[in-house]
C-alpha cells in the first residue's frame, strides 16, 4: 500500500476555549504531532476482516 500523507500536513491544534457569541476571547494555535505512517499492519488488519460480515450485519432501524 502507498504511504498516506498525514505527516506532510501540520495541523493546528483544536483550542479548548469556548465558542462564543459576541463578547468572548479568542485562542491561539500550536502544532500537532503525527507519527510516520506504517500501513503494513493495517493491510494485515484489513485481510483479517471477515468479508461476509456486512452480509450478516442487520440492525434495528433507529433515529
Amino acid at each position: 500500500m502507498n504511504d498516506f500523507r498525514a505527516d506532510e500536513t501540520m495541523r493546528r491544534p483544536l483550542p479548548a476555549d469556548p465558542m462564543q457569541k459576541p463578547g468572548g476571547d479568542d485562542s491561539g494555535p500550536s502544532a500537532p504531532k503525527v507519527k510516520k505512517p506504517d500501513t503494513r499492519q493495517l493491510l494485515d488488519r484489513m485481510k483479517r476482516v471477515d468479508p461476509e460480515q456486512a452480509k450478516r450485519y442487520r440492525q434495528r432501524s433507529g433515529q
Partner: protein
Amino acid sequence: MNSLFGIETEYGITVEGADATHLVAESREVVKSYSGRYAGPWNYRAEDPRNDMRGFHVDKLSQDPTDAQFDKPGDRVQSPSEDRCDRVLLNGARLYNDHGHPEYSTPECNDLRSLVAHDKAGERIILECAHARAATIGKTVDIFKNNTDFHGASYGTHESYLVLRSVPWSEVVQNLAPFLATRIIYAGAGKVGSEERGITCKYQLSQRADFFMVLQSVDTLHNRPLVNTRDEAHGDPRRFRRLHVIAGDANMSEYSTALRVGATNLVAALIESGWQTPVVLKDAVRAIKHVSRDETYKWMVDTDDGDSISAVDVQRVYLRGARELNLPGSDWVLDEWEEVLNILDNDPMSLSDRLDWVAKKSLLDEFVEAEELDWTQDVATLQSLDLAYHNVDPEAGLYYGLVDAGAMSTLVTDEEIEAARCEPPLSTRAALRGAIVRRFAPQIKAASWGGFAWEDGGQRGVIALPEAAEDYAALREKIESAENLSDVAAILRTS
C-alpha cells in the same frame, strides 16, 4: 453568551450468535453492563418528541415498516425505564438503550476540544460495556460507530445546538437546508454502495444521505427529513430552540467531528444574527443525495433561480457570512473550514488524514488495488471493510489502524479522552449534573437534562440546573461540599 452543543450517537451492535430480533435485549444488556457510578431513571415526562417546531403536535411518529419484522412477542419489557436502562454518568453524559442501539449522548459542551474528547470517551465507555457483556456471556460483542447496516436500516448521530426562540422557524429551515445538504463534503463518513431503491453507486460521501425523503418533518425513524422539526428545547423553551440536527454521519475522525459541529454552530449563530442565505437550492433533499453520490467530485447542485453552484461554493457562502460575524473563539473553525474547502476544490483525496470519507475511500482504493478486487463485483467484501472502519475497538477497527499508522490526524490526547470518561465539561450545566451524580446518585429518583427529582430520608424535591450560571466551576465546588440534596437545591436556587 457561550454556544452550547452536543452529540448523541446510536451505536451498531453485533453479538455472536444473535440476530436482529435479539438486538433490543442485547443492547439493553450492554448498557446494563456499565460498571461506573450513575443516576437514573430518566424522566420521560419531561420530553415530547411529537412536538413540532411549526406549532403543532402530531398524534404519532412514523415507524419503519421493515423494522417490524424483527419484533417478537414478549421481547419488550414492561416499563420504558426497564427497556431503556438510562444512566446519567459522572461526566454528565447519558447512556441508554435506544431500540436496539446503545446510545451515548455527550454532556453539553461549549468548546470543541471538550466535545471531541467526550465523543471519543463515549466510544470507550460503550466498548467497555461491550467487553463486560462479552465476558459475562462468553461471546463476542462488537460495537460500530456508523449509521447503516447496508440493508436499509439506519440509525442516527444527532447534534444539538442552542438557538434563540425569537428566530422564526421558517428562517431556520430556509437558511439551514443548503448548508446541511452540502456539509457532507467534509462531514460525511463515507459508504460503499447505496441503499435507496433503484440507485447504484460504488461509493458515496454520506452514510445517511440515502435515508432523507423530505425537507422538514418531526419524524426521525422513517421518511426522515433533512431538517428535523422536533421541538424539545431541553432548556427554557421561551428563550431557546434546540436545533436537533439528524442529517449527519457518525464521524470516527476527530477532525471531521470538530469541523462538522464547529461550522454548524457558526451557521446557527449566523441564522440567529438575521443573516439570509443568498443561495436557495431547488431541492435540498435531492441535492444531498446528488452530492453524496457524485463520483466526479464536482458536486454541482441546482438553485431555485435555475442556475447551479458547487457544494464547495455553497459552503463558502456560509463561511463568508460566519467570518463577518467575527465571533470570539471561532478562528480554528473558520481557518480549517476555509482550508478544507480550498483543498476539496482542487485535490479532495489529499484530505485522507482528516476526513472520514476520504480516509476510508483511500484505504479501500489501496486494498482493491493490492488484492485485485473489483468495486462492482466485490461489494460485500468492501462493505465489510467499510463496517470494520467503524469498529470502535482500537485493536480491530480500521480507523484506529489508520491512527496507529500515523495516517490520521487527531486533535485531543489520550489523557483528555480518559479524563472525559469521568469528568464533565466545567463550563456548562453538565458540570453540576456530574457533581450531583458523584455525590448523591443513590438519592436521585429521576433525571433529565434540566435537573433531578430526589428523595432522601423522607424529604423529597426537585433540582433545576441553571442554564446560564456565571461560574459553573464554583457552583460545582459548592455541590461537592454540600451535606445533602436539600442544600444543593438551595445553592442552585440562589445561583
